[in-house]
């Protein structure tokens, strides 16, 4: 028998963890002499009470959905892919090449082409660590994190030496042509009378991210490949017994993971900056780990967690703008959320399980 009902596992535990994170964040804010309630109000106002705020929140959330799904898929095969950052960077290169060197008649075709480019480059960047893990036993955590640095160096080289337009000063590619401009939420939802999502970077890629959630859900729980990935992740010895090749699953799971991470850059590179810049990923690859942890590796959970982190990002920016709370504190708050929802999960889980068992016994 399961120790507690499913709703408690999925809803109650993250909620309590969040509450604890908020509580300790409040203490920190108090300690630096600011008012935590006012700070929270400012965050909610800035991120959720105006459409432009939502426009930013969902823009960040789009990134986190992709990287969160990337970590989840790998984790179902018990592979800890912390190379999302590097895979997203290289994915950006794929997007830039697709946008700069192919003449697209319409953005809808361009986004497909750019997604393929991003997915291929991201997957390729995950392939080498995957191969090393599967064939040589090199630990994937080590190799993927090293590949993040290599990716950053490669991107730097490519931007400075190859893609930088002649005469330009900053390490960035040329601006993408007008034809590949993706519709933003402002383009899509504003009417004559009311300007919605004014100036916000959220764009059509958000829907691509939602689609990715659906596809990952079907893949993991409805297909044979997903069955094999989960089986391999739960027990490698059993997978071998069933004739599931560990090498094959390791490589495929990492390819899918890398592709998803790479697709994040469709949002940042094509949807927002409209050219390839250095550090467009802004750590979203790492946030993906927290998102996957908090979302319990389920696409729906990842979606919710991504929106939460989008809120923290946008709300944090508002705090830095309007109060004397330093920007670094936002990192502290995010860290607390990760700490309580991810690392200290058992701290909440165990007492809660005991409580449910005690309750059940009393009712029995």
């Amino acid at each position, binding site marked *: *028998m*399961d*120790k507690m009902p499913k709703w408690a596992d999925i809803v109650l535990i993250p909620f309590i963890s969040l509450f604890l994170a908020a509580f300790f964040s409040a203490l920190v804010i108090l300690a630096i002499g600011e008012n935590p309630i006012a700070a929270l109000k400012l965050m909610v106002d800035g991120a959720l009470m105006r459409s432009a705020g939502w426009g930013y929140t969902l823009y960040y959330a789009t990134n986190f959905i992709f990287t969160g799904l990337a970590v989840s898929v790998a984790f179902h095969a018990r592979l800890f892919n912390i190379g999302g950052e590097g895979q997203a960077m290289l994915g950006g290169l794929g997007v830039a090449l697709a946008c700069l060197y192919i003449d697209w008649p319409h953005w809808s075709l361009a986004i497909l082409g750019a997604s393929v480019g991003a997915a291929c480059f991201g997957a390729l960047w995950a392939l080498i660590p995957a191969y090393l893990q599967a064939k040589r036993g090199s630990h994937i955590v080590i190799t993927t994190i090293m590949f993040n640095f290599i990716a950053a160096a490669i991107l730097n080289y490519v931007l400075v030496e190859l893609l930088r337009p002649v005469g330009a000063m900053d390490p960035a590619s040329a601006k993408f042509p007008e034809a590949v401009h993706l519709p933003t939420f402002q383009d899509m939802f504003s009417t004559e009378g009311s300007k919605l999502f004014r100036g916000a970077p959220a764009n059509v890629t958000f829907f691509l991210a939602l689609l990715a959630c659906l596809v990952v859900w*079907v893949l993991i729980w*409805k*297909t*044979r490949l997903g*069955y*094999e990935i*989960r*089986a391999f992740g*739960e*027990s490698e*010895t*059993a997978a*071998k*017994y*069933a*004739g*599931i*090749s560990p090498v094959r699953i390791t490589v495929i799971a990492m390819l899918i993971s890398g592709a998803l991470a790479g697709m994040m850059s469709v949002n940042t590179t094509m949807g927002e900056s409209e050219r390839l810049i250095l550090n467009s990923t802004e750590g979203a690859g790492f946030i993906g780990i927290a998102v996957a942890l908090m979302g319990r590796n389920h696409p729906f959970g990842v979606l919710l967690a991504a929106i939460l982190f989008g809120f923290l990002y946008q709300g944090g920016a508002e705090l830095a703008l309007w109060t004397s709370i330093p920007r670094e504190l936002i990192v502290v708050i995010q860290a607390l959320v990760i700490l309580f929802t991810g690392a200290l999960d058992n701290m909440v889980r165990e007492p809660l399980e005991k409580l449910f*068992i005690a309750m*059940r*016994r009393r009712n*029995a």
Partner: protein
Amino acid sequence: MTAPAIELKGISKAFGPVQANKDISISVQPGTIHGIIGENGAGKSTLMSILYGFYKADAGEIFIKGEKTLIPDSQAAIRAGIGMVFQHFKLVENFTVLENIILGAEHGAMLNSSLGNARKELKHLAEEYGLNVNPDEVIENLSVGHQQRVEILKALYRKAEILILDEPTGVLTPAEADQLFRILDRLREEGKTIILITHKLREIMEYTDTVSVMRRGEMTATVKTSETSPEHLAELMVGRKVLLRVDKKPAEPGATVLDIKGLRVVDEAGVERVKGIDLTVHAGEIVGIAGVAGNGQSELLEVLGGFADGTGEITMNGVALPLTGHGADGQARRAAGISHVPEDRQREGLIMEFAAWENTVFGYHHSPEIQNGLLMDNKGIYTEAEAKMQRFDVRPPDPKLAAKNFSGGNQQKIVLAREIERNPDLLLIGQPTRGVDIGAIEFIHQQVVNLRDQGKAILLVSVELEEILSLADRVVVMFDGHITGERDAAHTNEKELGLLMAGITDTSAVANGNGGNDTNPQEVPADG
């Protein structure tokens, strides 16, 4: 009458909603061997863990020699004169016997005086009880039987008056088991009290003075061994009448299904585990492979099942099977008509976190009939799983429950249902009833015999001699990667097989039923 060596009064212990021990009272006289028997999960180990201070009872009292004693930890248990020999030994492999014995009982910061004392004491114990072990030998070089002696010596060195042994014969050859029981007899004569936990009825009947039966956390009966019978004990354990022997008609072997020639298997560490064996299995017969665990049987199954590489020749229905590479994986083996109930159902046969219904297609998830376009036909699989669980009497019959939430016997039934209903030409079955309770054993054996009677070939590997003898038609014994003998199951006995299992091929002294007296075979190395 003297005070009982141990008396438990009203011990209860619950783990969450599970009541592992319910109001257990028991009293053991000094100088006796007291057996505790019960199915898996009946609460035997919990009760002993309470006695040894690993768990704290929710209620109840413990009396040692008539005095109420609190046992909050194992140190207290040792002070109270209780020693425990665990099923899995707790020895430091690369320490010597002597070092292991003083471990945790050193007299001071410097070891020399402790080692000296221990050496003297050990010599004394060896003389008194016949517990001979070389004190300077490193543990990993000792046979399993001798390692167990070290565990007993450890307890005696700590002045144990009461010795608890948890499933002590599970890892021993029959000869080693005999030696163990001779030692226990000596200990009893010297006035020690022994509590023997086992699920083997034969050991209880032969060696104990009194026996307590546990079922579902309760002590259902305590009887004098001389006044009971195996059938009666089995009934007390299960709560209904059970058939102890398999009811089957003689085999009618048909064509050769599996033919193995010169098979060799080298494990990942580079050690040769199977050293060139020849073996055939015919349609309509059960071939049992007997042997002490670790003599190459597992590797044989792994090669046949497609998850280890080997060299040699294997044909299946006349067609050669590849032994390495992609064509030798589990999928290819299944396609060739081989089903496999693996030895370790929890690590191999099932995905413990998966629901039962998902597990009913594990390994066969490529079958065309459970695909629905690009997706798996999850509804169809679920419905079929429900029916399978009904047919194999899996309890509870809930396909949504995760495999880890079923008892060992019911987990095994899920694996069996999956493998047998594939209607294979050859069924490989390893340790079919390890950790399975008596009630389920009867059912599982019957299913295997039914499959045989349908004309299928069955290769059975088991470390339980009783099981091999009652289930197999032909018995092949493996020792150190070789086949040391082959016998007709109807015309052999445990003594004879025991010698073969120890690598002694001259069995004329014990052949044909009666069995010789204390034949003292050479010691068997721990792992081939």
